[in-house]
């Protein structure tokens, strides 16, 4: 079968083949990415071929100037994550037949990461975040002797299989929407790894970890968009792990943050009226004594009032709200 591959080319010397065409500039927040050229190649491969097969074929037989990073070709090493048709995927796991759109497959370095050359991005931001969460076990004392095992219940480790499956390819971070606007956000991969240690019964630093991850750039800076869940090639579901840390952090008493205030205000509103009270939710989340924060929300509030979009001042309950209260009484936990 014949496949058409459009490769995003970039090199710091700025030398390109004549037939390479300048791509559109990237929209914000990616507009600082260096201009790319797209160069088109056609390759002859079997119908089962993956994107990486085409890139290797191009590099080996057509144009040895194309830079690609890859190793295992089996979705194990995590080297070949890149943008395929505008989303982060492992090139070795993406079948060309599934990724051919309008007769071609576009492959490029993800614009959310610095680029070194062609399809090779600089993973430094990824590794910095990874190490920031201290992804290593700080074992409880006393540690077992040299000839002993550190025994833990099987179920406790089964709970962590998902996080251990991470191959550090970075696909989740490349497409993370919070990271795109907030370079300080620890991101889905690092936080999924963070849960791998928070959830480990052998670790002695659980409380310290929960406190650190609750700070700026941590669990509460996730926008809950599910991009990481969709893009992860190994089913790690990073967002789900972030939510687990949120639960544990709140249970451990790290509640002085807008995230917890938001959840508390939300729950109180649903419990008392069956529905959301938009009028009080935002001020309560920002913090009623946070004068500066409250002032920042004021212009938008005035705009909404002017447009006649003010939620009803007297917040009405839904009919039969007592049933909702019963549910909260039974299952509400800290929202009771």
């Amino acid at each position: 079968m014949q496949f058409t591959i459009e490769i995003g080319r970039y090199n710091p010397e700025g030398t390109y083949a004549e037939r390479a065409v300048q791509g559109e500039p990237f929209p914000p927040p990616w507009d600082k990415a260096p201009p790319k050229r797209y160069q088109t190649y056609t390759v002859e491969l079997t119908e089962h071929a993956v994107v990486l097969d085409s890139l290797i074929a191009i590099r080996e037989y057509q144009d040895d100037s194309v830079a690609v990073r890859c190793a295992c070709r089996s979705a194990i090493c995590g080297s070949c994550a890149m943008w395929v048709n505008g989303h982060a995927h492992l090139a070795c796991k993406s079948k060309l037949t599934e990724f051919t759109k309008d007769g071609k497959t576009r492959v490029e370095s993800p614009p959310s990461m610095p680029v070194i050359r062609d399809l090779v991005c600089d993973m430094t931001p990824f590794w910095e975040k990874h190490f920031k969460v201290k992804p290593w076990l700080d074992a409880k004392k006393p540690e077992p002797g040299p000839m002993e095992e550190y025994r833990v219940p099987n179920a406790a480790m089964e709970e962590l299989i998902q996080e251990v499956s991470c191959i550090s390819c970075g696909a989740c971070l490349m497409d993370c929407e919070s990271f795109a606007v907030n370079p300080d956000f620890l991101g889905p991969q690092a936080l999924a790894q963070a849960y791998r240690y928070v959830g480990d019964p052998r670790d002695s630093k659980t409380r310290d970890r929960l406190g650190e991850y609750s700070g700026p750039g941590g669990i509460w800076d996730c926008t809950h968009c599910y991009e990481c869940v969709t893009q992860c090639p190994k089913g790690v579901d990073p967002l789900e792990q972030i939510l687990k840390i949120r639960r544990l952090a709140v249970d451990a008493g790290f509640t002085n943050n807008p995230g917890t205030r938001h959840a508390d205000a939300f729950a109180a509103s649903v419990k008392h009226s069956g529905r959301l009270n938009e009028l009080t939710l935002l001020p309560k989340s920002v913090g009623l004594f946070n004068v500066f924060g409250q002032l920042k929300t004021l212009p938008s509030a005035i705009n909404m009032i002017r447009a006649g979009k003010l939620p009803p001042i007297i917040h009405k309950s839904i009919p039969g709200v007592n049933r909702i209260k019963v549910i909260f009484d039974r299952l509400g936990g800290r929202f009771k």
Partner: protein
Amino acid sequence: MKVAFYPGCVSKGACPELYVSAKAIAEPLGLQLEELTEAPCTGAGVLSEQNPELSDSLNGLTLAMAEAKGADLMTICSTCQGVLSGVSYHLAKDEKRLEKVNATIGDQGFGLRYSGKTKVKHLLWMLFEDIGLDRVRAAIKRKLTGLKIAPFYGCYILRPNEQLGLNERPERKTYLEQLIALLGAEPVEYRGSTKCCGFPMLAFNRDKSLSMAGSHIIEAKDKGADLLVTPCPLCHLNLDGQQPDAARVLKTTIDVPIFHLPQLLGLAFGYSPKELRLEHHVVPTKGALEKIELKV
């Protein structure tokens, strides 16, 4: 066609124009709306992340109410759709979770049981899968020719795949573009259409949330969009309600009106902008409406 109508909190709160326009377009589409007036808020993902059991029972109650009406549940909000899809997916798959829900809602004056079968469908999906495009086409009285419209889906109607049935029906990810073309307008292709509006972060990280919202609208505007259309009122709150502030954060002007999905349908079905409350937006809709020779 009878549907159990779940309007969601925002259509009854800060976006009353959504509720009004959804009710208006029901008739030409042949929808008999049986509103679930006693159904609680879905928790918008905030309650489920802190307390999944609580979320299961609150949403299980809603699903049971729809089941009692013997109809599919229709949402008009991507976020409600996402949460209800998630809960109905898990309750259909996991008997133990379903049992727990029924243990909570099965007594004390509830008088309800949930069997795990309610289908949850956003109006956008219903147009294609239940109402049928022929019916939509027949209801059109005014083509929206000349307008360039950028779709904005909202995360929870697009992700995660499995809970939303997108593996079986990948075409659900293109319904907005198809609908815009069907109504006679030109869909704008841009990266931001499937991105996050930033609303879930508004209370925690205001400037980042607003720069998310603003950058997507600017991208659509640069591609020539006269307006954005969204099936999610929470996206609407950020894209429309916060737009002037987003412009301030990004140090620019934006001024692109944001329409709710039923408002766009309503215009094509011949309703006046007033009937669809198009004057109750933060960003004026006047410019876009003038393009199809309408006045607010």
